[in-house]
C-alpha cells in the first residue's frame, strides 16, 4: 500500500512539470511584449516595466526565465498583479476557503442525491420509476450549469426569497446559506454521471454470482442490496472520479461567476477577462496542481477501498 502511494506521488512530478511549462508558455506565446502583459496590459511607466523585466528575468533565455518563475512558485511566490496591486498568492489564499467550501458542498449534495437515486433506479430496473430517474439525469446533464444557476436564483432568491442570490458571507456557517444555491446548481449538473455509474454498478452487482450467494444464504433483500451489492457498485464511482473532478472545477468556475462568489474560479475568469497575466498564470497553475493532487487522493482512496487494486 505504501509503495503504491509512493509510486503515484512520483507520477505527479512530470505532470506538474508539464503543466507548469504550459502555464509559463501562455504569456510567452502571445505576440505582445511579455512585460506589458505581465503589467496587466495597460500603460505602465517605464520604471514599472523595467522592474518587471528584472523580476521575471525577461532578458535571459527562456529556460532560465522558467526556472526563475518555477522556483518562485515552489516558494509560494506566484507573482504580483499590478492591476490589482496584490500578490497573486495572497489572493489565492484569501479566496481558497470559499472555493473549497463550495466544492465540498457540491460533491456531498451530488453524491447524496445520485447514489440513492441510482440504487432505486437499479432496484426497479425497467420500471417507470427507473425511466423517470434516468430522464431526470439526462435533463440535468444537458442543462448548462449557469442556466440552472440562473433559474435557481430566479426561483429561490427572487420569487421565494429563501436564499441570497449573490455573494458570500463571513465564515463557514454563514457561507452555508450563500453557497447552498450555487452548490445545488453544480451538484445537479454533476449528478448525472454519478447516477448512471451507480445504477450500472448496482445492476451489474445485482446480477452477479456473489449476490446470488448472498440471496441463497437467506439474507434479507435490504442487506443484499446495501451490504453486498452497493459496496461493489460504488467502486466504479472512483474510476469516474477523475472525470467528475474535471466537471467540478469547470462548474466551480462558472458557478462562481454566475453567483458573484469571490473564489478562485472567479479570480481566474476575471483575470482572463481583464488580461491580467500574473493572475492568469498563478491561478491556472494553482488549479492544475490542485486538480492533480485531488486525483491522487482519489486514487489512494480507491486503493484503500478495493483490495484488488493494491497489487497492480
Amino acid at each position: 500500500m505504501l509503495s503504491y502511494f509512493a509510486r503515484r506521488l512520483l507520477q505527479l512530478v512530470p505532470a506538474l512539470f508539464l503543466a507548469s511549462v504550459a502555464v509559463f508558455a501562455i504569456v510567452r506565446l502571445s505576440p505582445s511584449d511579455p512585460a506589458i502583459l505581465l503589467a496587466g496590459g495597460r500603460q505602465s511607466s517605464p520604471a514599472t516595466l523595467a522592474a518587471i523585466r528584472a523580476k521575471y528575468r525577461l532578458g535571459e533565455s527562456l529556460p532560465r526565465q522558467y526556472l526563475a518563475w518555477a522556483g518562485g512558485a515552489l516558494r509560494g511566490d506566484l507573482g504580483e498583479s499590478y492591476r490589482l496591486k496584490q500578490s497573486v498568492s495572497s489572493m489565492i489564499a484569501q479566496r481558497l476557503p470559499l472555493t473549497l467550501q463550495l466544492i465540498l458542498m457540491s460533491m456531498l449534495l451530488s453524491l447524496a442525491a445520485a447514489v440513492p437515486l441510482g440504487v432505486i433506479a437499479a432496484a426497479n430496473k425497467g420500471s417507470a420509476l427507473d425511466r423517470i430517474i434516468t430522464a431526470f439525469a439526462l435533463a440535468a446533464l444537458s442543462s448548462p450549469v449557469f442556466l440552472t444557476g440562473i433559474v435557481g436564483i430566479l426561483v429561490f432568491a427572487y420569487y421565494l426569497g429563501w436564499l441570497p442570490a449573490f455573494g458570500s458571507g463571513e465564515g463557514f456557517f454563514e457561507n452555508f446559506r450563500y453557497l447552498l444555491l450555487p452548490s445545488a446548481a453544480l451538484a445537479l449538473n454533476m449528478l448525472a454521471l454519478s447516477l448512471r455509474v451507480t445504477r450500472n454498478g448496482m445492476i451489474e452487482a445485482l446480477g452477479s454470482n456473489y449476490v446470488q450467494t448472498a440471496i441463497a444464504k437467506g439474507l434479507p433483500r435490504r442487506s443484499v442490496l446495501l451490504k453486498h451489492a452497493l459496496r461493489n457498485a460504488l467502486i466504479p464511482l472512483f474510476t469516474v472520479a477523475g472525470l467528475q473532478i474535471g466537471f467540478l472545477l469547470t462548474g466551480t468556475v462558472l458557478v462562481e461567476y454566475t453567483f458573484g462568489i469571490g473564489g478562485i474560479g472567479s479570480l481566474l475568469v476575471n483575470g482572463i477577462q481583464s488580461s491580467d497575466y500574473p493572475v492568469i498564470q498563478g491561478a491556472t497553475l494553482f488549479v492544475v496542481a490542485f486538480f492533480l493532487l485531488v486525483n491522487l487522493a482519489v486514487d489512494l482512496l480507491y486503493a484503500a477501498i478495493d483490495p484488488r487494486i493494491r497489487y497492480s
Partner: protein
Amino acid sequence: MSELLKIEGLEVSFDDPAHRGEGGVARAVRGIDLVLGSNESLALVGESGSGKTAAVKAIMRLHDPTKTRVSGRIALEGRELSAMSEREMEGIRGRLVSMVFQDPMTSLNPVLRVGDQVAEAVSLSRGLNRRSARAVALELFAKAGIPSPEALFRRYPHEFSGGMLQRAMILIALAASPKLLIADEPTTALDVTVQVQILELIERQRRELGTALILVTHDMGVVAERTERAAVMYAGRIVESGRTLELLAKPLHPYSEGLLDALPRPGTRGEKLKTIDGFAPSVFEEAPGCPFAPRCRYVQRPCLAEIPALTEAATGRRVACHRARELDLRGIA
C-alpha cells in the same frame, strides 16, 4: 426415512426477447418429477443446457421473477414452496435449503473478507453476535481442513485458490445445518486433484449433519461413489432415474448409455473418445416426438411421433424411452 423434497410437474421458462422470432420463450425445464428423502443423496446429471441448473435454482427461487416463469409444485417437508411469500423464502434459504455454486471465485463478494462472509452465514443462522459468529466460523475453517485458518480468515477472495474458496462456500452453505444441500457443479471450475477433496468434504459434512444432497453435474464419473440415486436430464426432462450403481452398470436410456460411453477409461489409450453426434434441441423448440431421437442410434418410427413418458421399468428404475424394454444397453462395470 421421511420424504424431504417432492417436486411435481416443475416447469421453468425464461422470457428472451432477443429470440422473438422463435417464440421468445426459452423452455428450460419441461415438467419434471422428483422425490428425495431426508439424508438421501441424488445426482442430477445432464449436459449444459439440459435444464438441471434451472431446475435446482427454482427450488430455492433464485430466478429473476420478472423474466422467469416457474410452475409446478415444490414441497419441502410437506410445505408448498410456490405458495410462500418472499419473506418466507428468505427464512428457508440458507436454513432449510442451501446451495453451493459452480464458480467460487465469482460466488464470493470480492470486497469483503472471506472469514466475514462465512461469519455472516453463521450469525444469520444461529443468531450470534459478530464476535461469536467469527469465533465459530474460525472453528469451521479449521475443521474443513483449511491450512492456517487465522491468517486466511482475514483475507479476500482473490487471495485464495479455487479449492480453498469452494471449501469456504461449503462452510457457508452448511452453517445452518440445512436439511438439503444442493451442489451445482461444485467441482467443474476446479483442478482434478482438488475435485476429489471437495467432494469428500461435502460427503463428510453431510454425513455429520444428516443433510440430504442433490449433486448437479455433467460428469458421470463424479457420480459413481457419491450418490445413492441418480436422475439423468435431457432437454428439460428427466429421461432416466434409479439407484446410481444400477444405472451405471446397466443404463436403460440411450442417452445415458452415450454419456457412459463417452467417459475415458483405463485400457482404452490410443482410441478415439466416443461422443454423441449432433446437438441438443434448442430451448425454443417444440418438436413432436422424443427429444433425443435425432441423435439416438436406436431410433425408430414411433420415436418421432410421440414424446415418451417417464415410466417405471423395474423397481426403483424409471425411464422415458419407447424402446426401453427391447434395448440391451452397455454400462460400466
